[in-house]
């Protein structure tokens, strides 16, 4: 029991909570950016400007089918060889945004496809332009349909920030390792604690998603 109380001392907990803060900060920035980019890419894919859409689709497929860990390594260890310099924080965010934008673009595209095509024709017949119809009629409905997959993608993103521990981003997992690096008896308590912390954040988000789904679905 004394090991537990030593492991969960206020100092250690504070150290971990600061890591949770970094995890959440990186997640939020990445979610916002990748949502915006994913939305644009998804629309480009759906609208189908000849070569542009094909090229975008190809790049998206490549990125989607690579391990995120490889993209993180590439951003942090390989890009600097070409002169692109980044801190661990921006490298983590960049890698997450690149990967998640590609994942989200697919979600957006299938979300738009799932909206009845008759709606577009209907909107156009009332005199709206293609983009007006897209903006006011199609997208709002598509976004509602997308809520469940979007949220589960966001949950993935939060969990995936743990991979950035390898480039010494001082997030939750990295800090847990620092703590048990000083006394290896803390290993079990540390893993339990961070598992609980990740769980609370992710589970809370999935509950919110479920509520949203019920409300709009």
């Amino acid at each position: 029991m004394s090991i537990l109380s030593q492991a969960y001392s206020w100092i250690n907990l504070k150290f971990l909570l600061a890591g949770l803060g970094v995890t959440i900060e990186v997640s939020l920035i990445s979610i916002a950016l990748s949502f915006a980019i994913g939305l644009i890419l998804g629309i480009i894919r759906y609208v189908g400007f000849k070569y542009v859409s094909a090229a975008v689709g190809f790049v998206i497929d490549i990125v989607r089918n690579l391990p995120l860990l490889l993209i993180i390594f590439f951003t942090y260890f390989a890009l600097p060889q070409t002169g692109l310099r980044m801190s661990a924080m921006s490298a983590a965010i960049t890698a997450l945004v690149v990967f998640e934008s590609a994942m989200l673009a697919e979600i957006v595209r299938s979300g738009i496809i799932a909206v009845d095509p008759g709606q577009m024709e209907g909107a156009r017949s009332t005199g709206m332009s293609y983009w007006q119809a897209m903006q006011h009629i199609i997208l709002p409905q598509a976004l509602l349909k997308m809520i469940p997959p979007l949220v589960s993608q966001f949950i993935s993103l939060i969990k995936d920030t743990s991979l950035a521990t390898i480039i010494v981003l001082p997030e939750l997992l990295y800090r847990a390792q620092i703590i048990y690096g000083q006394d290896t008896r803390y290993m079990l308590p540390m893993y339990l604690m961070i598992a609980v912390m990740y769980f609370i954040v992710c589970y809370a988000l999935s509950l919110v998603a479920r509520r949203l789904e019920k409300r709009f679905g």
Partner: protein
Amino acid sequence: MIQVLTNNWPTLLTGFGNTLLCSVIALFFSLIIGSGFAIMETLPNKLCRIIANTYIEIFRNIPLLVITMFFYVVVPQYVLKMSGFTAGTIGLTLYTSSFIAETVRAGIQAVDTGQMEGARSTGLTYWQSMRYIILPQAFRLVIPPLGNQFINLIKNSSVLAFVAGFDLMYQGDALASATFDTFNTYLVVGVFYLILTLPLSYYMRHLEKKLA
């Protein structure tokens, strides 16, 4: 790039093989475990549903890396020694099975509820109807999403690199650390992953279209 490939062909190939091996093993077990929990979730028994739900929510909401590290560094101290490859494969199995459970459950529930009643009325037991009527249909419905889970599984197997699991990512990373030619090494590793995931991904898209 070609040079990285020719100089380290055996190393990369071993890594590729290990990635494939652990992905297939993890897929096999997570299909069994995932389907098991999916069926439990649809049972009338409340306790069964609670157990299944708890399992699914726990493993869906904790990072795979944390689960894997737990099996690599904590479990061997108290329970049972295991290699990085084993720990990684167990982590992958538990994590993926929770996603597969959700997918299969959705499939089961998408099969018309009338079918169960219909099957029962012909004299089949609950389990017989599940086995011969509901599950085959459910699995057909969920093949595309399951395929996508398998793609995720292959990508996620890179977590073995954290626990010295000798997979593709581990071998590539060790090469990159030794030669400092990170750029070309990671490109080669990326191509190897794409060889596995890209065709699968296109095939699943094709299936999805065909089934829709």
